[in-house]
């Protein structure tokens, strides 16, 4: 390849995280006295520091070897994923002490997922994206089955891995076909070839596109590729469930958004209704099946499937406006979901329970915990004052702007359906009589993390302007005019 510009310092945040991951493993090996719980807090420093360091590249537009973009889009996701990684480590600490072996590797794998996720957002080329995706996925397969004496964890991990490998094969085959047709794996190169087409587009092109959508559909758990989600969510250790729901979805959408914007947008009329159909199926199945769940992890698994449906709305309505709305909703959703998970982890650490009816009377025993979980659930349902209302409103409006009013209407309807099953949990917490009346002890650090997340939910819900500005800067940087100016010579 000509014009390679290997500015290694551009990858500093990733090096920091990788180095930190190694350090955490070594720390656990040579200084095990530190204990499982403090190790988690130490591990959290890495991704948080990397998030801070990545701010150096705000408003910068460069790339690494034509493979990885360093622009506002990447920076936004570096910060975002770094924060998710940090929160995941903090939320894991007590859980790991209570129930998992080999803490060093556990935290190191969490840090690896952050690198993989960042790579997916940063990639400007299909193979780089694929390798990053595999790094993320493999870390998550291992983490899912980390509770090795728990059969559900093993089952969940195995299902996740087998289906994941299958879908990776889809994706790879799709990439292969795409390369066969366009002779390039660069997003902008594919985009150029596709926009240059005048006669009929080859069938292999469509097949490749369908396979790529399918492969990515698996990663975001879109119907009909969602089958692994409930089992993986239920089997995985709780903090890992939180991580899967947050980072794996966000990263896959980051990849998908950039890929579709830069490469596939010339064919938008061909895939728009395909994606819209998947979105409808995903919203419908996720929200309707969630109603019947009795386990909180499975419920959140199905609810997250429903949420993916809303996010797909942003892909189907692809435009600069809907891209920023999509990212905005994703940030709001992930923050909310993490708040819900942190609350559930605190509850689980204390009680060892995860059935919905076991939350009864929580408001008596831990009012703050119940309040935080209620706020998170109302936000997921799209109620005002919280993030969910503002971001959903903007996302659905963005879809309506692109002549997809019917799809926005369906999304609003399923958002209403989701309120029912969130209310069921709230009912247990506030109306049920607790089995015992002892108060929960207060885990200060977890409560601090929870408070930060809940504050984030309010912040996005009440004053989204700063976040929306940042998101818009970032999504503007992936749209062609900006991308073309910086593109390196194609092979």
């Amino acid at each position: 390849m000509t014009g390679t510009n290997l500015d290694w310092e551009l990858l500093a945040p990733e090096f920091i995280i990788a180095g930190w991951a190694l350090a955490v493993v070594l720390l656990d090996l040579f200084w095990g006295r530190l204990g499982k719980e403090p190790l988690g807090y130490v591990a959290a420093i890495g991704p948080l520091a990397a998030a801070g360091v990545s701010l150096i590249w705000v408003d910068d537009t460069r790339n690494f070897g034509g493979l990885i973009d360093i622009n506002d889009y990447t920076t936004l996701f570096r910060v975002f994923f770094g924060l998710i990684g940090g929160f995941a480590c903090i939320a894991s600490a007590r859980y790991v002490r209570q129930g998992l072996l080999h803490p060093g590797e556990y935290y190191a794998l969490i840090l690896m997922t952050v690198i993989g996720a960042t790579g997916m957002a940063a990639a400007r080329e299909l193979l780089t994206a694929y390798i990053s995706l595999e790094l993320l996925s493999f870390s998550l397969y291992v983490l899912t089955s980390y509770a090795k004496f728990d059969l559900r964890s093993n089952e969940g991990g195995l299902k996740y891995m087998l289906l994941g490998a299958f879908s990776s094969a889809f994706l790879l085959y799709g990439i292969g076909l795409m390369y066969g047709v366009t002779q390039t794996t660069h997003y902008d190169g594919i985009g150029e070839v596709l926009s240059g087409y005048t006669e009929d587009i080859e069938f292999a092109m469509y097949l490749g596109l369908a396979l790529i959508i399918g492969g990515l559909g698996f990663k975001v758990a879109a119907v009909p590729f969602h089958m692994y989600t409930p089992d993986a969510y239920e089997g995985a250790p709780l903090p890992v469930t939180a991580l899967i729901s947050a980072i794996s979805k966000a990263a896959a959408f980051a990849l998908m958004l950039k890929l579709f914007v830069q490469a596939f947008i010339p064919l938008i009329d061909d895939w728009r209704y395909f994606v819209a159909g998947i979105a409808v199926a995903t919203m419908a199945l996720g929200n309707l099946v969630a109603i019947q769940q009795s386990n909180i992890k499975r419920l959140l698994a199905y609810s997250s499937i429903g949420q993916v449906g809303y996010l797909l709305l942003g892909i189907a309505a692809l435009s600069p406006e809907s891209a920023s709305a999509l990212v905005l909703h994703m940030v709001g959703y992930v923050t909310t979901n993490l708040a819900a998970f942190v609350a559930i982890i605190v509850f689980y650490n204390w009680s060892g329970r995860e059935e919905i009816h076991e939350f009864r009377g929580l408001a008596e025993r831990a009012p703050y915990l119940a309040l935080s979980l209620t706020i998170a659930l109302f936000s997921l349902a799209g109620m005002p004052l919280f993030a969910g209302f503002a971001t959903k409103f903007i996302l659905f409006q963005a879809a309506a702007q692109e002549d997809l009013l019917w799809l926005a209407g369906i999304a609003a309807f399923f958002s209403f359906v989701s309120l029912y099953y969130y209310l069921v949990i709230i009912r247990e917490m506030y109306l049920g009589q607790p089995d015992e009346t002892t108060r929960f002890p207060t885990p200060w650090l977890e409560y601090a993390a929870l408070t930060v997340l809940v504050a984030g939910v309010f912040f996005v819900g009440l004053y989204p302007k700063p976040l929306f500005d940042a998101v818009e800067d970032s999504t503007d940087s992936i749209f062609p005019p900006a991308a073309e100016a910086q593109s390196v010579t194609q092979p």
Partner: protein
Amino acid sequence: MEYVLLSLIVIPIACAVLFVLVPSHYPQVTRYIALTGGLAMFTLSAVVFFVYEFNGGSGLRYDLQWDWLEDVGFLGDHGISFFLAVDGIAAPLVLLNGIVILAGVFVSWNITHRPKDFFVLLFLLVSGVYGVFISQDLFFFFFWYEVAVLPMYLLIAVWGASSDFGTFTRTKEYGAMKLTMMLVAGSVLIFVGIFATFTEAGLGTFDMTELRAVTYSEDFQKWCFPFFMVGFGVLAGMWPLHTWSPDGHVAAPTAVSMLHAGVLMKLGAFGILRVGIQILPDGAEFWSPVLMTVGVTGALYGATSALTQRDLKYMVGYSSVSHMGFVLMGLASMNTIGVTGSVLQMFAHGVMTALMFTNVGAVYDQAHLRDMTKFGGIARVMPRHAAFFTIAGLSSLGLPGLAGFVAEFHIFVGLFQAGYWWAGAAGILAAALTTTYITRMIARAYFGPLNERWEGLKEMRIGEQAAAALLIAGILFMGLWPAPFVDRITDTVQTIPGIG
């Protein structure tokens, strides 16, 4: 003055935050904060009502516009702004909310089960109601609308009461879930309507004053108006989507029934007027016969249903459906006097239903029974209670000198003027049915020989009497001196395009 409007939203939210901060073992502190907040809101609401100048023009006063989200995504200059203003329609409703919340605080004085959480949710609800009345931005209009609906589930499910009818029961969870689900389902339609209107206008702003200035194509107005009409209609208790209302109001605790039937249901009718008719006048014109038909049906259906109820609270619940039917009829008349009557009816029904729920709550707290046939002659042991309930009833059936008469008179005149003589006739029939069920209830429960079982009943608590006195003051004010109301409302209504 504009900061008075702002404080109407800020005060309840600030109180809610204060409630959270006060430890739960000081319930008395919580109550006094609630009382202070209630008094403040009442005073400021009264100020807004009386200071409002009605002298023609667009009617919007004391506007305060802060950009909230602009120049991002699809949003233009004033994309979403925190835009407050009051007009002649909103002014009386703001006053109504001030009266009802203060009365609600009086009535809730004796709540002992988690009073702190109760007041947090109650005040959150009130902030939402104020927000809807004074927002001029469609996004925030809907935002506050949802804020007002949001706390209902917990308020009813935690502090409400289940009903046992012997052969079947209606649990409070059922009432709460039904109410929440139906109202949010209505919101879905509003959601779609808002998306469609925003896209059609193509201005990149949710500012309602700008959205109103656009002339939308006739076809668009025709298909879009029903989304607002039905979506807001659910909350307005529009037949046949009213079924949440009796169940929800019966299950709710007294103060919540008062606020919900008294003020929240008005949000629905207010939404039809503010968003539906004001933005899409041609659509409203086209659909007005349908709105008229469901309004008439609701008025008659609610009245006949109330006639068959033995449970006092269900009777009041169905009477609300009936009176909201009058409100919808007034809106559907599409002329100044009818729409004015409709807004008058919102106020009149608000105060008198709140008064009725206060009274039902007072007797239920002591007797733990609401079956009117099991009472008898309790006017002897609770004379003031009986008097208050009778006044509410008389206003409800439209006795001249009380609020209900002024409102219904305007509505009927509007109906006949618009040529809806059949609707006017049916409305008068519904008013006659109202007379029947009210007098029947008063005769059965309050007069006649005293049922000895109830000799031990005591008079209403002083807080409840204060609430009742306040509400009666509202009824008498409008009944005896309607001019301040009519002037303010007419001033704005006649500027709405499409209303003749």
